[in-house]
C-alpha cells in the first residue's frame, strides 16, 4: 500500500493528471492572481475504509450494513488549468472591464476499487438473477468528470495593474461539471458521477496580518438526475443538492515556507433512490415449494441527506518563485452517510413474471439501513494530497498607456 501511494504521488508530480471527490482547499484559491496562466496538479490517496453512518457514528467499514469490512480505496490525480485575465478593458464594458476574471478547467484521473464484504457480494453469482446482481464489478478507473468554471472578482481586483499586495478580494465563481468521467453502472465506486451539476460559490480572500492568508468560501451545487444510477440503483438517482464551505488560514513561517490549517464541509440534501434492484443486506427469501425469491419493491426512496465536516493541515513550499508545492492532510471530523429502508416483496415461484397468472407476490418485509452508494457514502478516512502549482507567465498584461482611445 505504501508503495502504491508513493507511486501515485510521484506520478502526479511527473504527469500531473486527476481528481478526488473532496479536493482540499488550496492556498490562495480566491486570490486574484496576476493575469497569467497557472497550472496545478494534485495527487491524493484515500483508503476510504471508514464512513460516518446515517446516525453520524463513525464506522470501521465503508459499508455498515454488511458484516465484515468494506473499503473503496481511491487514488486520484487532477490537473487544474487556471487563467486569470482582464476582459474588454479598452472597451470600458461596465463591470467586466474594471476587474479580473478567471476561467478554470479541472480534469482528473482516478483509480477506484471495492474491497472486502461488498466486493464479495459483487462477486457472488448466486444472487437472484432478476436483481441483476450477477454482473457487479469492483474496479473502475479512468478519466474523471470535467469541470469548467468562470469567475469574476467582485472586489479586490480593480487596481490589479498597480497593486503590489491584495489585502482582500471577493470572487464569484460559477461552474458546471460535465459527467465525462468513467462510470460503471455495476460498480459501487467510480471516478465519474454520471450526472451534470452546476455550482455557484463566493470566495473571500484576505490578509489578516503580515504573512497570513485567509481563504474562505461557500457555495451551492445543484445536481441533475443520474440516468443510470450505479450498483443496482443503490446510488442516488437524484443526488441531493449540497451546500459546501471551506476556510483556510496559512501563515508564512520562513521565506518560501507556509503552514496552514483548514476546515471544509458540505451538507447534502436528501438523496433519492429510484427502483433499487437489490440490497446486499437483504434476508434470503423464504423457503417454499415451489421455491420463492424476493426483490425490492419498486419505488422512490430517500435517505436523510449527507454531511461532512473535515479539518486539515497543509504545508506549502515554494520551489524557486514559480512552483508551489503543497502537502495536505485532511481528517474528517463528523459526517453522515445516506441510508434508507427498502421494502421487499417475496415472489413465488421464483423468477415468475409479476402479474402473470400463477405468479404470487407477498410482502417480504423491509430491509433496514440499506447503504446508499456512490455520493451517498461519506467517508471518515483521512486523505493525503500532494499539490503542485506553476505560474506559466504572462499573457497580454499591460495596457497601451498614451494610446488614443478610438
Amino acid at each position, binding site marked *: 500500500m505504501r508503495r502504491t501511494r508513493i507511486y501515485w504521488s510521484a506520478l502526479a508530480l511527473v504527469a500531473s493528471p486527476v481528481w478526488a471527490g473532496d479536493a482540499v482547499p488550496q492556498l490562495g484559491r480566491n486570490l486574484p492572481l496576476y493575469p497569467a496562466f497557472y497550472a496545478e496538479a494534485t495527487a491524493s490517496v484515500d483508503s476510504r475504509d471508514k464512513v460516518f453512518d446515517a446516525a453520524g457514528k463513525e464506522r470501521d467499514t465503508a459499508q455498515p450494513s454488511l458484516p465484515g469490512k468494506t473499503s473503496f480505496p481511491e487514488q486520484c490525480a487532477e490537473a487544474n488549468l487556471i487563467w486569470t485575465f482582464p476582459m474588454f478593458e*479598452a472597451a470600458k464594458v461596465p463591470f467586466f472591464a474594471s476587474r479580473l476574471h478567471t476561467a478554470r478547467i479541472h480534469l482528473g484521473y482516478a483509480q477506484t476499487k471495492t474491497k472486502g464484504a461488498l466486493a464479495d457480494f459483487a462477486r457472488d453469482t448466486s444472487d437472484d438473477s432478476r436483481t441483476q446482481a450477477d454482473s457487479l464489478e469492483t474496479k473502475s478507473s479512468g478519466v474523471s468528470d470535467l469541470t469548467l468554471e468562470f469567475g469574476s472578482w467582485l472586489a479586490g481586483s480593480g487596481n490589479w495593474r498597480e497593486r503590489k499586495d491584495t489585502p482582500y478580494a471577493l470572487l464569484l465563481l460559477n461552474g458546471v461539471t460535465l459527467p465525462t468521467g468513467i462510470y460503471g453502472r455495476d460498480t459501487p465506486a467510480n471516478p465519474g458521477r454520471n450526472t451534470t451539476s452546476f455550482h455557484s460559490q463566493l470566495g473571500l480572500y484576505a490578509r489578516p496580518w503580515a504573512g497570513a*492568508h485567509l481563504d474562505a468560501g461557500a457555495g451551492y451545487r445543484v445536481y441533475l438526475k443520474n440516468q443510470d444510477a450505479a450498483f443496482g440503483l443503490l446510488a442516488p438517482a437524484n443526488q441531493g443538492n449540497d451546500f459546501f464551505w471551506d476556510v483556510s488560514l496559512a501563515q508564512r513561517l520562513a521565506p518560501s515556507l507556509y503552514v496552514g490549517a483548514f476546515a471544509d464541509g458540505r451538507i447534502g440534501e436528501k438523496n433519492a433512490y429510484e427502483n433499487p434492484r437489490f440490497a446486499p443486506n437483504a434476508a434470503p427469501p423464504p423457503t417454499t415449494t415451489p421455491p420463492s425469491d424476493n426483490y425490492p419493491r419498486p419505488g422512490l426512496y430517500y435517505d436523510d441527506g449527507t454531511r461532512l465536516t473535515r479539518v486539515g493541515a497543509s504545508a506549502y513550499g515554494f520551489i524557486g518563485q514559480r512552483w508551489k508545492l503543497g502537502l495536505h492532510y485532511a481528517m474528517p471530523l463528523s459526517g453522515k452517510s445516506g441510508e434508507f429502508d427498502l421494502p421487499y416483496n417475496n415472489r413465488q415461484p421464483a423468477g415468475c413474471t409479476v402479474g402473470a397468472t400463477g405468479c404470487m407476490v407477498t410482502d417480504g418485509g423491509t430491509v433496514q439501513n440499506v447503504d446508499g452508494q456512490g455520493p451517498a457514502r461519506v467517508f471518515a478516512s483521512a486523505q493525503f494530497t500532494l499539490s503542485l502549482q506553476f505560474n506559466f507567465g504572462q499573457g497580454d498584461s499591460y495596457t497601451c498607456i498614451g494610446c488614443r482611445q478610438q
Partner: protein
Amino acid sequence: MKNAFRFSTLLGIALLSACAPREILLPKLGIAPYRLADFPPGYTPPLSYETGQPMPGFGGSGALDHTPVIFIHGNTVSARYWLPARRYFKTKGFSDAGLWALGYGWDNVRYFDSADLSVPSVERIVSSVMQQIAKDTGKPVDQVDIISHSLGVTLTRQWMKQTNSWHKVRNFIGVCGANDGVWTADLYSRGQNRGVAFELAPGSPWLQQLRDGGDTPGPTRYMTLYDGTGRGDVLFPKPYENSSAMEGATNLAFNVVNNTWLDHLELPRVPETMDAMIEWLKQAPEPLRSATPPALVRKGDVVQADQPEAKVHCEIGARYPDARTAATTAMPLAAGVLTTCFARNDSTHLASPMARFKRADKPLAPGKLTVTADRMANAYENPISVALTASEPEAFIVYTTSGSKPNSGSPLYTAPVYVAGPLRLTAMAIAPDGRQSAPLVLDYDVSLELIEAQHTLQRQFDSSEPEDYEGKRKKGR
C-alpha cells in the same frame, strides 16, 4: 494502463501547442532549418540585430544601370516573400545586381520585436547592400530605392528618421503600411505581440513620433500603395482603409482606382501593382554614381550647400523640409528660431543628410552643456514617457531610440519620449553656439520578464520576496 495512456495522450495534445516543429523539432533531429541565401559569391550577409544570425535573403552581382532596389518585408515573414517580385522586376529590365532583400526579425510567429529593435537591422541591410554593390561595381552607391511592405513600411520610415538617412533613399514605396495604425493592434484587438502592437496601435505615441515633423521628410520621393476599399486588405478595414496613405506622398489606393480585390499579401507583388510601382520608380532621375553628395555648411548666420550647383531646402521650426520645400541657395537663420535643412544637387541628384541650425537671440551662459532625463534607465512594467531637459534653455535636444548616436538632424525632442518596449535612448543637446552635450545614453525596457518576475507565484503571496529578475530579455518578447 490503457487509461493512463489515453490521459497522457490528451495531455500531450495540449503540450503540442507549445511546440513549433520547424524551429524546435528539426534541430533536435540534427537538421538545420533551410535558409534562403541566394547571394553573389563572396557576399557575407549582415547579422540580424534581433537574432544574431546571418540574415537570409537574396541579391545579385554584375552590371548595374539603375538605382538598387531593396525590398523590406513585413512581420512574420522573411526575404523569401519578395521572390516573386524579384522575378518580375527582372522581366522589366531590372538587373539581378540591383534587386536585394534580406530578412530581419524572427521569421516565425513565435517571436516578435518592436520596430525600434529592428531599426539597426535595416541599417545593416542598407549599408551592406551599398557596400557590396560598390565593391562589385567599383563605384560608390549613395542612394537606393526601397520597397517595403506592411510592418516594413513603418520600420523603414523609422530607420530613415532615426539614422537621418533620407538622403540615402531616392524612392520609398510603402505598400500596405500601418502609417496611421492597424486594427489588429488597436486597444480592442491587440494580440500578444505587444512590442509591435504598442507601436502600431492607431493613435499610438510611437506613430505620433514617427509623424512629427511631417510624413515625408527629406529629398526622398514617397509613394504608398494600398487597398483603400476597406474590403481587400483584411488589416485595413474601415475606418482604417486609408491608414497607409501619407501626406506628401503619391498615394495609390490601388483597389479603389482599379476596382480590384487584391489583399494584403498580393498588393506588393502582383504584376499589376508592380507595374505601377516600376512606372513610378522610373520617373525619378538616376543619381550620378561617381559624384560626391553635397553637404550643408553654416557660414555665420546663413546655411548653404558646399557645392555651387546644390541648393538648400529648409523649414522653420520642428517641421522637416521635404521634396516640396522651396529650394534656395542660402538660408538666413533668424534669431531664436530653429531651422532644419538638407542640401540637394539637381545635377547629380544627390542630397545631404538633414541638419538643424539655431541662431541665438541672446548671449548664452558659458559652461558645460548637459542633458538629463526624468526617468532613470531601468526596466519598467508599463510603458513610460521620458522627459528630457537641457542645461541651456536655448539649446535644442535631439535623440535616437535605435542605438545610433544622434546628430542635429535626428528626431527633435518636443515632447516626452514614449517608451513602450526595449530601446536605447540616446539624447544630445545642441546649443545655438554649436556646443554639444555628451550623449546621454539610457537603456530602457518595458519588460515581460520584469512583469513576470514581479508577479511570480511566490511574490503574489509574499511581495517582500526579492524579484528574481536577471535583466535578461527573452528573444522576441
